[in-house]
């Protein structure tokens, strides 16, 4: 659509800018402030330069080791999550009925996990995964697996992954379902005339049409899984040991637990910048791919 140039549009944007300045920029500046200062006594700050940042980014220091460990866990986690949730979500969205009575109830059921407060999700799985009173834990142990999500790092990781798949695959399903519904019937009719196989229909018609929503799904899933906090906090508390201590958990531990403001602030900023950069790289790569295709 053609847009007209009109700088008075800024008046329409003004309310949003004011709200976001107050609720985002002001706090970010507070963080920046903390990250370059050190507190002597109560509320007595002095300039500390880039010390916090240097410590943080040097894996040989204590905080640096913690940071790089948590970052590595976060990256692995997000990668595995995307690898499971995106194909699973697409497959399930293909299986969803397009019309009929079953559409409404299935969509409501599928969307339900996303509307449960995150700490309740944690509580729910904390109960569900227990070997003595939870069906999931009891079933796994019944199968002869040595499953214990509070003692064994592998079990803990497995639980967090299962929770996230349970919690967020619905987002991928709904996005991809919306994309599928937007494909005109004529496309499928043409495929039928050409006697295209089911696989060919998926590769040549459905997947290209899904590209835009999938970019959205991957971006959203990446952002959220990279910020994961509540579920591991409630279910495993970041343990056993440090096995499921992700960046957010460590950050809250340092900031609110140890009240080590400088380190926490430097960590926040680096964390935030990593998230933005990764999203930006991904977004640019996808739009470049788009342009190449069109050219």
């Amino acid at each position: 659509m053609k847009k007209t140039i009109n700088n008075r549009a800024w008046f329409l944007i003004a309310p949003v800018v004011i709200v976001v300045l107050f609720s985002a920029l002001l706090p970010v500046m507070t963080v920046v402030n903390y990250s370059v200062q050190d507190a002597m006594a109560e509320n007595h700050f002095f300039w500390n330069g880039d010390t916090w940042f240097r410590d943080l980014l040097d894996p040989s220091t204590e905080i640096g080791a913690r940071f790089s460990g948590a970052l590595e866990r976060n990256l692995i986690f997000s990668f595995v999550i995307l690898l499971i949730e995106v194909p699973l979500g697409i497959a399930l969205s293909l299986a969803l009925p397009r019309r009929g009575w079953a559409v409404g109830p299935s969509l409501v059921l599928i969307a339900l996990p996303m509307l449960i407060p995150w700490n309740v999700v944690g509580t729910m799985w904390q109960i569900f995964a227990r070997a003595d009173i939870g069906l999931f834990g009891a079933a796994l142990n019944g199968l002869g697996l040595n499953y214990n999500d509070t003692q064994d790092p592998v079990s803990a990781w497995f639980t967090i992954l299962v929770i996230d798949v349970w919690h967020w695959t619905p987002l991928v399903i709904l996005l991809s379902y919306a994309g599928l519904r937007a494909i005109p019937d004529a496309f499928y009719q043409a495929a039928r005339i050409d006697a295209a196989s089911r696989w060919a229909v998926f590769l040549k018609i459905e997947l290209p049409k899904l590209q835009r929503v999938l970019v959205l799904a991957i971006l959203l899933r990446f952002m959220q899984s990279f910020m994961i906090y509540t579920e591991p906090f409630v279910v495993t508390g970041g343990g056993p040991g440090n096995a499921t201590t992700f960046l957010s958990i460590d950050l809250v531990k340092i900031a609110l637990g140890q009240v080590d403001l400088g380190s926490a602030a430097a960590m926040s900023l680096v964390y935030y910048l990593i998230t933005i950069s990764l999203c930006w790289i991904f977004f640019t790569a996808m739009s470049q791919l788009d342009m190449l295709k069109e050219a």
Partner: protein
Amino acid sequence: MTRGVLPKLGLVLYLVCLFLPIYWLINMSLRTNEDIMSGLVIWPRHPTLIKYFFIFHDPTWVHAFLVSLTYVAINTVISVTVALPAAYAFSRYHFIGDKHLFFWLLTNLMAPTAVFALPFFNLYYAVGLFDTVWAVALAHCLFNVPLAVWILEGFMGGVPREIDETAAIDGYSFWRFFVRIFLPLIANGVGVTAFFCFMFSWVEQLLATTLTATKALPFAAVMSRSYSASGMDWSLLAAAGVLTMIPGALVIWFVRNHIAKGFALGRV
């Protein structure tokens, strides 16, 4: 479009797995703690609503539930109201810095809430809003306002420009056009946006618990409090958990026909 039994079977299996943890929570909430600890029971033998009655008769729980609903409602109203004109501007005009501003707004969606917990605490303490529903409502604007702008912009892009021009020629002032003609056209989009704002404000817990202490304790905070008191009251916790699902379930039921569309954020 898929035919055959296998995909349907897979879907049904998935839905069962999806529902199992939820069922388990409901199951727990209907049993007493002694019964829960006595072993695994797939179907509660003596279902009881005693924990629900307990919650309904305890002013702390009821108040907390109302607090949660209040800040979610305030946040939804603020987010949608400020986002509407902004989304219109982004969808209709070029202006200095529009692309950068849009990306800047989106970066707020990528901000880990953990990053903001402490500065928010300081900020709202300083302005005297700490421990009020307003603090939480405003804090959730951090991610809901950019999201609302994003979704609404998608929907507004689908409305042809000619409508704006015709209205201008007919002598409508901007605001009259916006409220009387334009808003009804994107009513669906507004509904979907409100749903998303509701959803993200309702499920967010870290900021909500950080910004409150006693007077405006959200439901989640009261829940985590019952962890420590007298060991684990599993069945109470389960009952409270079931209650938190109800508003969400109601809201999805109302928007179920728009949900697929809304999830594509209008930009399929």
